[in-house]
């Protein structure tokens, strides 16, 4: 009587479960293929020179040098952009949750951010370029940082927003019961409790910033030198990949793959590193 019989609904379950596994494999397979491609093509060209030197004469024709200009440029651009975006995002996200909540205004703000999130980054680049022309600013690290901050802001605010809305109500009320103002709850309790999630949100935005080519193309320009001030143009890894893969020389193309590999490794190091840090800061979090 309790024996398993193959009823229709069991078949449906097996079928749907199979579909889920297939979808997962497709996605994981794509990721694997991408990593495999850049590893196979890029690893042979990943020399010490690549990460410690700037391009020398004839670099794009196959002569010596490396992409240190693009590595540092990308770190400056994405680091600066993320920092700037963070300075604005955290207050916006806290304001959204603390004072707007589910009100009409809260919904309008979230909708606008979602729309901004969906705008292609090339549009941000052109927008930034137009403003730069108007105020007479040349392609520079500063302009690149500002535009990347704009690109990162919506993703960072919405990710933080989703994190902060999972704040336990009991905890918030415990702080209010002691006579906290809403601001004190937000700054002293919510940030501490939600820190791991907030760091994830920052990382997500950093990943988008460091991987973006279109927004920095117009605003930060490209140069073989390492910038020494905010007003100088700067190279970036995504554009380095683009320019090198665009040449007809296999050895330069290989360096393009190596640059992509470096970019991937940077993202990996920063992700793992900040997760380790947040695990340490996590000690007091209420589960």
């Amino acid at each position: 009587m309790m024996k398993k019989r193959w009823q229709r609904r069991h078949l449906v379950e097996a079928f749907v479960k199979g579909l889920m596994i297939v979808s997962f494999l497709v996605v994981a397979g794509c990721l694997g293929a991408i990593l495999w491609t850049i590893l196979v093509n890029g690893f042979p060209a990943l020399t010490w020179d690549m990460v410690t030197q700037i391009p020398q004469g004839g670099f794009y024709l196959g002569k010596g040098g490396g992409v240190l200009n693009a590595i540092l440029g990308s770190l400056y651009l994405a680091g600066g952009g993320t920092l700037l975006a963070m300075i604005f995002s955290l207050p916006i996200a806290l304001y959204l949750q603390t004072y707007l909540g589910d009100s009409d205004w809260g919904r309008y703000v979230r909708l606008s951010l979602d729309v901004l999130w969906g705008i292609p980054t090339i549009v941000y680049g052109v927008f930034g370029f137009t403003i730069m022309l108007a105020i007479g600013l040349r392609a520079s690290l500063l302009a690149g940082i500002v535009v990347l901050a704009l690109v990162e802001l919506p993703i960072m605010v919405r990710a933080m927003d989703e994190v902060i809305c999972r704040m336990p109500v009991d905890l918030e009320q415990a702080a209010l019961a002691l006579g906290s103002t809403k601001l004190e709850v937000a700054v002293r309790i919510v940030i501490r409790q939600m820190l791991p999630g907030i760091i994830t949100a920052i990382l997500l935005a950093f990943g988008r910033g460091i991987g973006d080519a279109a927004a920095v193309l117009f605003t930060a320009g490209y140069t073989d030198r390492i910038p020494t001030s905010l007003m100088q143009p700067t190279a970036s890894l995504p554009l380095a990949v683009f320019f090198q893969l665009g040449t007809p020389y296999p050895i330069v193309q290989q360096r393009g793959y190596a640059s992509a590999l470096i970019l991937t490794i940077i993202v990996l190091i920063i992700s793992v590193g900040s997760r380790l840090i947040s695990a340490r800061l996590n000690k007091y979090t209420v589960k």
Partner: protein
Amino acid sequence: METHIRVRNLNAFYGKQQALKDINIEIPKKQVTVIMGPSGCGKSTLLKSLNRFLELTDDTKISGEVLVDEQDIYAGDVDVTEVRKRVGLLAQRPSPLPMSIYENVAYGMHIHRMHNDRLAYKKAVRHYLEIAGLWDEVGKRLHDPATSLSIGQQQRLCLARGLAVEPEIILGDEPTSALDPISAQNVEKRLLDLKEQYTIVIVTHTLRQAKRLADYVIYMYLGEVVEAGPAHEVFNNPQHERTRAYLEGQF
């Protein structure tokens, strides 16, 4: 008997549903008042009206007055954070803040800037942990996360944290219902010790606890106060049929 909290013509609505109907009660100073009644009778709502927690729920409407020391806490010029500093709350489940044990007790004192130097804070933290009967257990591990304590210890930490902001009134929303019997007994004992200095208002759904703690009893049913009076009178000689039925367990 001196009155500490006077509730006048208090009505509360959640949306269109009326949760409190024309409440008029007087809560005596430095005694334990127990609010009891069946589930959904409005006892928690009444308690939350005393520290202005009702307004945290969306779509609530409140009318009437709640006078603490003859001052209406719902008046327009009243600072809600001051109200909550004077009227502390011990919740049903302990909610330690995401900080160390020390910081949990110091938090409220910090935001209200109650002391001037580090040493004074340290002394105060120790003092209130002693009152809550927790010092012997945590004195050597003040910088551990508060969540590393047992649930019973956490509830006493919440008591210490609440007392540290020097309230006059302590509200308890079934403060022992999430605890094991021994921890519950421990918390009850602290509350009885505290009534020398504080006015205590407790909501409970266990009649035995009400009988152990109460000096003064408020019995509620369907959003109304059916009967209120000194504990020995209400328990021994209830004036209303409903109260009598509840005390005899007919629910």
